């Protein structure tokens, strides 16, 4: 077959799109066949290794490189137990939120109300204790109850009434922040938080690590077992892969999607409790800054271990990676603008590393 057509009717002007199209096709061809043929066995083995490792462990490799670079740059501060503890403590709330989010993302749903849910849960708990003199266990249960309720509302509107998750949760998030302010009058609260409540996150009972780390570990373990080792998890991934095929296989797709929103709602409520417990105080809309990092971590995680799928171990790596970068860059004492540039650059590089492997593989 001739590669190009020299016989295009002469009266037609040269077609720009055609000129563009032709080389693009050639490039694709040379990538798939001739390029692979002449390479030696050593190169090929290298390519195969890259195919296997990069999509699964690209982000992990980038993570290790970042740790090594920081350790060389600040050998006395960065690679220490104290610093690791700081990173873990600061990452714990983000971790809980991100692994909860992973459950809905596995079903291809979005939840943009999680930041607002964090703020609402914290606000409810503190307001009930400080303004209404509730005992802390009741206030705590109430906050968790709000998390469940938010999940049910989101899940019902999206899974049962068919609303698009992106917009619905964005709108619900706005409503939730309104409810939070109704409880707290949008005023910062410093006093009236029970000591028992403060102990929940701040105290440390084990290995010198604060409780919030252990809470995060438990949540991550539970959700990892749920997604990777139970029937429900299998069904959830099936819904994410092909909702119609899942439904026709007899899976309760609507109920499971609702359950996903409840899980992430409760996770967000736990984060709200931890944040207010940690400082013994309440700041309005404290959850907002946690929304985007949770997504960043989950998407980083989807480029890890199970390429293309949101998974709990990947999300954990994503959260720790993000925490390490921000702590490390702070230690390096860079100017703010540089921190932003470097942080963004590292994330792009890490995700592309995984993609690169996938591209080579196909």
């Amino acid at each position, binding site marked *: 077959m001739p590669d190009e057509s020299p016989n295009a009717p002469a009266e037609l002007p040269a077609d720009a799109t055609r000129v563009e199209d032709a080389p693009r096709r050639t490039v694709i061809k040379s990538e798939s066949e001739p390029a692979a043929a002449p390479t030696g066995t050593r190169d090929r083995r290298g390519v195969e290794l890259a195919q296997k490792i990069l999509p699964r462990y690209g982000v992990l490799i980038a993570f290790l490189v970042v740790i090594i670079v920081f350790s060389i740059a600040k050998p006395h501060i960065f690679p220490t137990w104290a610093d690791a503890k700081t990173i873990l403590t600061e990452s714990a709330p983000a971790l809980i939120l991100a692994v909860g989010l992973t459950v809905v993302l596995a079903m291809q749903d979005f939840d943009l109300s999680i930041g607002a849910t964090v703020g609402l849960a914290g606000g409810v708990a503190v307001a009930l204790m400080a303004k209404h003199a509730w005992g802390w266990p009741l206030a705590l249960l109430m906050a968790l109850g709000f998390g469940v309720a938010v999940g049910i509302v989101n899940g019902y509107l999206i899974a049962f009434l068919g609303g698009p998750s992106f917009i619905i949760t964005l709108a619900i998030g706005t409503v939730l922040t309104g409810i939070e302010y109704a409880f707290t009058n949008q005023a910062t609260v410093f006093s009236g938080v029970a000591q028992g409540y403060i102990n929940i996150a701040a105290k440390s009972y084990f290995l010198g690590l604060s409780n919030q780390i252990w809470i995060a570990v438990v949540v991550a373990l539970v959700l990892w077992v749920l997604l990777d*080792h139970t*029937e429900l998890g299998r069904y959830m991934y099936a819904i994410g*892969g*092909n909702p119609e*095929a899942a439904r026709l*296989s*007899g899976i309760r797709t609507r109920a499971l999607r609702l359950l996903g929103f409840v899980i992430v709602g409760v996770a967000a409520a736990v984060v709200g409790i931890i944040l207010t417990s940690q400082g013994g105080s309440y700041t309005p809309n404290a959850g907002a800054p946690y929304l985007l990092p949770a997504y960043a971590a989950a998407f980083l995680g989807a480029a890890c271990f199970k390429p293309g799928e949101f998974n709990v171990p990947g999300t954990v790596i994503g959260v720790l990676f993000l925490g390490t970068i921000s702590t490390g860059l702070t230690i390096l004492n860079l100017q703010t603008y540089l921190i932003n540039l470097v942080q963004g650059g590292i994330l792009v590089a890490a995700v592309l590393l995984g993609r690169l492997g996938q591209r080579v593989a196909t």
Partner: protein
Amino acid sequence: MSAVAATSAPGARPFLVARGLVKRYPGVLALDHADGAITPGVVLGLLGKNGAGKSTLIKVLAGATAPDEGELLIDDEPVVLHGPHDATKFGLAFVHQELADVPNLTVAENIELGLGYPKVGGMLVNRRALRSKAQEVLSQLDARIDAAAPLASLSIAQRRLVMIARGLAVNARMLVLDEPTASLTDEEISHLHAVVRVLRDRGVAVVYVTHRLNEVFEITDSVAVMRDGRVVFAGPTGSVTREQLIEHITGAAAASTREPWRPPQPEAEREELLRVEDMTLPEVVEHASFSVRAGDILGIAGLVGAGRTELVRLIFGADPHSSGRVFVRGVERRIRGPRDAMAAGIVLLPEDRRNQGTITKFSVRKNITLATLRSFRLRGPLPFPHRGRETGAARDLVERLDIKVADTEHPIRYLSGGNQQKVVLAKWLNVGADVLIFDEPTQGIDVGAKDEFYGLMRDLAAEGKGVVFISSEFSELVQNCNRVLVMREGHLVGELSGEEVSESALLEKCYAA
């Protein structure tokens, strides 16, 4: 090359010639050295069963897919089409069955889309000029359509005319109409035919794809019949009879290798497994009633859009129905969703395998155990699947159905179409259902895999299951069914059983109107 010679009117130079086109898809030979030619001023009817290769041929002509072998010549010069843009450049225009128009733009904007709208001052679109230009093209077609109207306000027939007008606007030398009269009324059809004649008289080469034999004799000047990726017949329409065309389309000469299926026991001794009464979804399925007995392979014949898929989806609970009752082994079962159907012992292999049958990201094992995961619990009531037992069951089914896959952990998307279809079947065999409904199970899979599928359906029937088999290929139904229902426009219009089941009888019932 005799086929090429036959389609060319004597003396006229063909506009486009296809030589030895081959197109392979994984597991399918869609085009197998197809030859053909089309002459200006001729309406060529392109016929063939579903899967005969017509769509692939059209895709090749449109530049949407590149052939693996063979060449296209336009005005005797070899050409390579790198995309739809090239096809337009060479004067090829297409009106696809699924309209590729933009409903939220106006008629005029659609007709001139991509052709460079007339401008005011080189920047803004000159709406008035655009409209009058489009209106002129429409008037050539004698189409009473307002060029300023939003496309969405038009009927399907009018939208087809708009797409044809678009072909005129690009000065097309060849126009391909893919089943243009599907879902049109008689009046709309005769108008469309008039338009086709206008184009033909202006010297346009028209390729007219249709399943309706009446139409072939009414509108086409010559015909080309495709079967199994080849052009098996080409010649002037006047030179063939209706019966000869049917023979070319179905390949009746190629005798079936299996005897038609007949249940081992007489009907009276076989239990009624499924009875459907008065199943209705207004305008789609009207008052459908039938029953399936153990050992039956019950075919459902009909044209695309006759309501066959919709009917079985209603029975399976995939879509809500307005009225209708389902009895399994004589007991009425309320089916509100696929879960209820499965519990009642009914399963469905959906028509659209990729979108409805498989989870493409999942491995073969996970696809096979998806519907029955509960039966693989580690121990007790805890919902932890036992992976070893899952793998064991998956391997057994892979072996039993002869699924070609080295490891049950491989993603299902690496398998050929036929093997993917068998994985879907494996999933449902695990359920242990009484009634298995197969919706076009052999579509898009190769001949060998088809034959294996026929064998599997017979095995199931022989085991005493009830099998419902939807197919658009009459030969398949004749070969494998002991009874066949015929569906037309949402109604079950007839039932053939035993020796009455023949391709000509089915054709008669499907097309009679």
